[in-house]
């Protein structure tokens, strides 16, 4: 058993112990008076929650996007009043491609960043991540700006309506993904200070492990965004 008197140079315990205490409290993943085994148990539950939470979130989002797809194909096949898409008007193709490429780039940056992060390369992760954030913000701006450039009124056809609906949902998607990426990056920067210089990428502290689970979940979500964007690019701009 370690006592305070045996650690005169480290008030509050050794750096490892301080790290463990501090990160447990700050991440609020565990009961403050728990035994080490309990804290480890609850921490594993927390990491499991990150993993399964991100998958369930994607499942939930799939139902959301599937509802948009259903509306698209329902209105397309109904073609009421011959007003599915008169004169084959589509939303601006270059905006669609630009947004798609930016989202793909962000997803690749997240993936690349995560790979480097696992190997302990702090700079690569940060640079790739912030490039992804920038790219996501530009994509969000373009998606909003596209509302002013569409060559139709929202009520001029079923295609116009569903495109407006999709664009709103897509703004939400891009915002959610970019927010997640940015907050993960900001957290990783702050954690380095909290850990007193220990690399969060390689640390065994609870907070650092939690961050790694978060990065993994976030990357998974961005992969999903890239995949769904491919489908919607095909539906709204090429199909």
């Amino acid at each position: 058993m370690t006592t305070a008197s045996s650690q005169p140079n480290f008030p509050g315990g050794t750096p490892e112990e301080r790290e463990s205490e501090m990160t447990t409290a700050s991440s609020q993943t565990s009961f403050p008076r728990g035994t080490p085994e309990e804290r480890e148990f609850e921490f594993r539950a927390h990491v499991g929650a990150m993993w399964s939470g991100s998958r369930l979130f994607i499942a939930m989002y799939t139902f959301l996007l599937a509802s948009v797809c259903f509306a698209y194909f329902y209105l397309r096949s109904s073609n009421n009043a011959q007003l599915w898409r008169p004169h084959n008007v589509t939303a601006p193709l270059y905006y669609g491609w630009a947004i798609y490429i930016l989202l793909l780039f962000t997803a690749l940056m997240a993936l690349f960043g995560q790979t480097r992060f696992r190997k302990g390369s702090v700079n690569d992760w940060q640079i790739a991540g912030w490039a992804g954030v920038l790219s996501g913000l530009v994509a969000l701006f373009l998606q909003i700006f596209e509302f002013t450039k569409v060559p139709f009124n929202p009520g001029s056809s079923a295609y116009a309506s569903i495109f407006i609906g999709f664009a709103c949902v897509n703004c939400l998607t891009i915002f959610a993904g970019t927010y997640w990426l940015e907050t993960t990056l900001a957290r990783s920067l702050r954690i380095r200070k909290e850990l007193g210089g220990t690399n969060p990428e390689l640390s065994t502290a609870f907070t650092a492990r939690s961050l790694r689970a978060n990065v993994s979940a976030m990357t998974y979500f961005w992969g999903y965004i890239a995949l769904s964007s491919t489908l919607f690019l095909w539906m709204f701009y090429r199909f």
Partner: protein
Amino acid sequence: MSISTEQPNEVVRRSAAPPPKRRAISWTQRPGWMSQHLGTALVGAALGYWLGHWFGNYISSDYSYVANSGQNSIADTLALVMGVVGWLAGIGVLNYPLAKIAGREGKELEDVKDWTRYVRLSSDHKVVGLQYVVSVLLFFFTAGLLAMAIRTELLSPTFHMFSADTYIKIVSEHGTMMMMMASSIVVGPLGNYLVPLMIGSRRMAFPRIEAFSFWLFTAGYLVIFSALPYGGFPTGWTGYAPLANQAGPGMVSYLFGFAIIGVAMAAAGFNIAITIVNYRAPGMTWSRVPAFVWGILATAGLMTLATPSLFVAGLFGILDHTVLTTFYVAEHGGSSYLWENLFWFFGHPEVYIMALPGFGIVAELLPVFARKPLFAFKVVVAGELGVAVLSFFVWQHHIFQSGIDPSMRPLYMLTTELISIPTGFIFLVGMGTLYKAKIRFTVPMLFCFAFFFNFLIGGVSGVFQSDVPVNVTVHGGFFVLSHFHYTILGGLVFAFFGGLYYWLPLMTGLEINKKLSLIQFWTMFVFFNLTFFPMLIIGLLGQPRRVFTYARALTGLNDFASVSAFCLGASFLLFAWTLAYSLVINPKKSPLNPWDSLGLEWQTAQPVPVHNFERIPVIMTDPYHYSEEGAPKLADFGGGSSARESSVPPTDNETVLR
């Protein structure tokens, strides 16, 4: 896995070393009025509403949804959106997401110990559970008052209290509020409060999402209530287009209110599902998870996956009202059937979102009062999961009358009939548990019996409605109305009341007056049936719902139903009085584990400590070994807080329990 019962090293070390610096509590969460609470939420909502309305008029002052009507749906919508944002900001929901942008973790929440924690943002699942109890009851009583107005109008076919237009708006508001309330009536209060306790966890997986879901739920209540001052909406709770597109600004409240309730439901379901999957105590294998938790898990799955389509349907409706898209306008390329499909893809799972928690409560309570193990536990689980899965494949039976391709009808007829099989499992398990049991006729048990009685009528009157010929005959009438009141009010709400009477002593530490609760049960049960059984007959005799006049020959039955409904309303007032009397006027401390339950939630200290269990329990078996000789001990509490082990001597019938 084994959990050490030793005191943590840190405790010893801290006794000698300076205590670690406690993290600061944000001023927003400190005790006192100079912080964030319900008052600041109301102020935020009012400011947001005003700002949104002003901005909407500023950007679209020359716009009106209906020509010369003066109705500006953009301003109305922005007012509601900003009002909700202001509400959430005022209560403090947005503090954490904003802090995360700078990489900071949120400040601690639950520092307030007095009653005001119930009007603040809290990450304690027990506080959120009790907040939900009050909120759903508020929802319930508000919508119940509207039901009284409906029955008052129907006292006479010729003398009218309301105009036809006002009547349909009252019906619509009643239906929508009740459906919103019923979707969260068990998962919100009992799910949030009990699930961590029943799985041996000290916390929820995502407590901030839990708090967010509650405060969004309450915002949904305010938004849907705002439909009344906006002039109401005439569509009923189903909000069908094209009537919805022709309706006034109250429709925006409906669409937005339903959409945000959908988000709140998804968030609540998400958090609870992840908690159950990941935070079960060591030894709590899936076969040892209580039946109630299984019911909540199935419901949480449905809430998470079904509500996104409601959100999309609502978003499209709002876009139709604001930027004049034509999703639901057939003349401009849209389709009113699109709404019907999106709505019912959510709407039928919604029916089981309301039914499954009721099944779970009854399955949990029956063994306690039958003093027998739950009969065929795995069949209960199969029934609950079977209902959940099948509920995604039946939604089109709601639009048999609306123009579905006739060749598709048999498929949906079949899937709807199939769903009665797993529902029947629950009944069989209930009967099996009661067989040769020494039943204790307590108030919660009486509610369980009432559940079976009512749900049987609701189920039997429902199963053949899936047959197309019957559906065609009874559609849109009082028969259908009575059927779903039997399943939702007679099933879910009776189960909820039974659950409340059962778990309130745990939640409050106080005893509920037995005499009053017994009177309340019998009045509720008798007058519920006297209200809704005549409606089955009224419906078969041809009275359509949502119409404020009817054939003179049906006056007697309608009057009988109305008077019974008033008495039913009085029984709910008696419930409020019972709670007020037992909890406030004449509070009496409840004995520990008053029902001699083996449930894990009853084995912790009472009142339940902030972190539920002093030591994480290690689960040894399931909680249904009533009256079994030599049954294994439920859990090892590691010397921590077990009410049974540390606080009280064994009960008189300890041997019976085991």
